[in-house]
């Protein structure tokens, strides 16, 4: 869908924190000079069109018990990529699963983000996946340090659009 400037204003508002009140949409609508009903209709439309993937709480997974995560990259034969990707995506321990291009010095084409409650649980799970899928060429990239983690702010690029 083509986004109007009002749509972009609504998206900018929704990507921030909802007001901590009993009727957060009413507060937001007032800020946007809209009726609450008009705002709610837009939110539902964005959800229906898939623009808004999710409206809700973004939790810190460290703080809810998922203390360990590892990125595992797999070298999957081209003709098996789609089937293997779907197989891995079905497992709840995997939060993200993508096929990415290979490069001359980079042979791995399937990327998985694995979460667990301990390092051993993550490692066991990776071995289990390798045995199940028969993919033997893979590498574990453990995160040593989080250098940045934020939510994207869309439509804030031009100086005129920032407030």
């Amino acid at each position, binding site marked *: 869908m083509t986004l109007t400037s009002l749509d972009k204003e609504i998206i900018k508002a929704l990507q921030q924190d909802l007001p901590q009140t009993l*009727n957060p949409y009413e507060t937001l609508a007032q800020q946007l000079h809209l009726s609450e009903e008009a705002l709610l209709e837009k939110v539902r439309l964005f959800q229906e069109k898939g623009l808004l993937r999710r409206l809700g709480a973004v939790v810190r997974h460290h703080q809810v018990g998922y203390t360990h995560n590892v990125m595992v990259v797999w070298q999957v034969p081209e003709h098996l990529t789609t089937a293997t990707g779907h197989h891995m995506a079905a497992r709840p321990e995997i939060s*993200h699963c993508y096929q990415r291009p290979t490069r001359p010095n980079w042979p791995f084409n399937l990327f998985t983000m694995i979460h667990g409650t301990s390092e051993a649980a993550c490692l066991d799970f990776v071995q289990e996946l390798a045995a199940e899928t028969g993919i033997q060429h893979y*590498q574990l990239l*453990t995160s040593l340090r989080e250098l940045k983690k934020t939510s*994207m702010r869309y*439509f804030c690029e031009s100086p005129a659009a920032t407030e």
Partner: protein
Amino acid sequence: MTAIQDPIDQQLLNLIQQDFPVDPRPYKILGDTLGISESDALQRVNLLREAGIIRRLGGVFDSRKLGYVSTLCAVSVPDHLVPQAAALINPLPGVTHHYQRDHTYNLWFTLIAPSDEKLSETLGQLEKNLQTQADGGPLLNLPACQTFKIKVQFQL
């Protein structure tokens, strides 16, 4: 296993990670589902926000459907120059996640940009800066060609 002990808080988090109600009285709906009052639901959510367990309560958008493009990049820099490299990478507004990892390619970050042109321009400039200021190697640019799963909910 989970750091959240209170069973109502657990259920509440499971609910609102999926779908915060799009309704004039969202906390009334949550309260009714959980058998607590509207004001109790609000108070619990506010406490979880203040405790930092909820990083943000808001919308997560599909960057592609908003006309944006995204990629995952990796670069190799000497360990002692990681702070210099991070000082070049992190200020870019489209960089949302950045990790140092245990690998020859030791820095991994995601980049979102309003167009392919802007993305290439940003990466080209960044690669140059990393080479001159942080002894960085060539950038590995790996945009997704197939997405099998993006899941950000954690079952408690």
